[in-house]
C-alpha cells in the first residue's frame, strides 16, 4: 500500500521539476527523468536488483539510494538557481534605487 503514496509523491516531484524549465532547463529535464526511474523502481522493485547488477552497483537497495541522492541534488540545484534568480532581482532593485538617489556632481544637471 505504500506504493501509491510513493508514486504520488514522485509524480508531484516530476511535475514540480518539469515546471522549473523556464528557470533551469537542465533541472526541468533531469528531475522528471530521475523521478520516472524512481516510479519504475517502486512499481517493479525487482528491476532495481536487475539494474544494479547491470550497472555494477551491487544491491538494488544501493541503486534506489543513488537515485534518491540524484533527486536530492537536483532539488538542491533548483533551490540554488532560484536563489540566484532572486539575487538578480535584488540587484535590479538596488541598481534602480542607487540611480534614483544618485548625487550628481556639483553643477552637473541630472538628466533622466
Amino acid at each position, binding site marked *: 500500500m505504500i506504493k501509491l503514496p510513493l508514486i504520488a509523491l514522485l509524480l508531484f516531484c516530476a511535475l514540480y521539476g518539469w515546471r522549473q524549465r523556464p528557470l533551469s532547463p537542465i533541472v526541468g529535464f533531469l528531475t522528471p527523468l530521475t523521478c520516472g526511474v524512481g516510479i519504475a523502481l517502486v512499481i517493479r522493485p525487482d528491476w532495481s536488483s536487475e539494474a544494479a547488477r547491470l550497472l555494477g552497483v551491487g544491491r538494488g537497495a544501493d541503486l534506489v539510494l543513488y537515485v534518491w541522492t540524484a533527486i536530492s541534488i537536483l532539488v538542491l540545484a533548483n533551490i540554488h538557481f532560484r536563489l540566484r534568480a532572486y539575487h538578480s532581482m535584488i540587484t535590479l532593485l*538596488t541598481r534602480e534605487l542607487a540611480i534614483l538617489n544618485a*548625487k550628481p*556632481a556639483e553643477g*552637473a544637471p*541630472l538628466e*533622466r
Partner: protein
Amino acid sequence: MPGFNEGPMIGKTLASVTPWLPNIVVVDDGSSDDTAEIAARAGAHVLRHAINLGQGAALGTGIRYALLQGAELIVTYDADGQHRPEDIEVLLRTQREAGADVVLGSRFLGGAENMPVSRRWLLKLAATYTRMTTGLHLTDAHNGLRLFTRAAAERMRIRQNRMAHASEMLEWLGSSGLRIAESPVRIVYTDYSLAKGQSFFSSFNILWDLWSSRLYQ
C-alpha cells in the same frame, strides 16, 4: 568607477583622473567606510548600493547611470589606484584610430610594475581560457581599464555581480560582432591594490559563477 571600502585610496585616485575625464561616476558598492563622501567631495557623481553586490553589479549600475546622463564614451577604471590616468588618453586614441566599439586595456602590451609571478601566470591562463571559449585573441582578459562607446554599452548586459563579470563581458563581446581593440596600459601593483585584489582561489569562484549561470535563466 566601482568602489567598496576604498576610503584610503579613492580620493587620490579621483584627484589623478579628474584632469582626464569630464565626468566621473563613482558607484559605492555598500561600503561601510567614507568612500561615498570622499568621492562626492572630489566632484564625482556618486551612487550608492544599499548592500554590497560586487564589482560587476557596481559597473552595471555606473554604466546604466552614465547612459541615462547621455554619455557617448564610457571608461571603466579601478578605484584602487593601480591604473595610470594618462592611459585613458591612450584608450581614447586607440578607439579613434581603430574605430573600435570597445577598447580593452592590456598590461601585457603596456607593462606591469611589481606584478607577482602567480598573478602573471593566472592572467595568462585566463587569456588562454578566453581564447578557447570566445575566439578572442586577447593578451589580457581581466583588466579593469576599458572603454565602451555608447552603442556598445547600450547592448551590453552584465549578469555576473561579482568578479566573473569580466569573463562574462568577454564571452558576450566574442559573439557580439562589435569591433574590439586592445590598448597598451601600465598597471602599478601596490601593497594596497594587491591586498584588495583577487586571490588564486577566486578563479574557482569565477569559473563556478560562469558555468553555473549557464544552467539557469
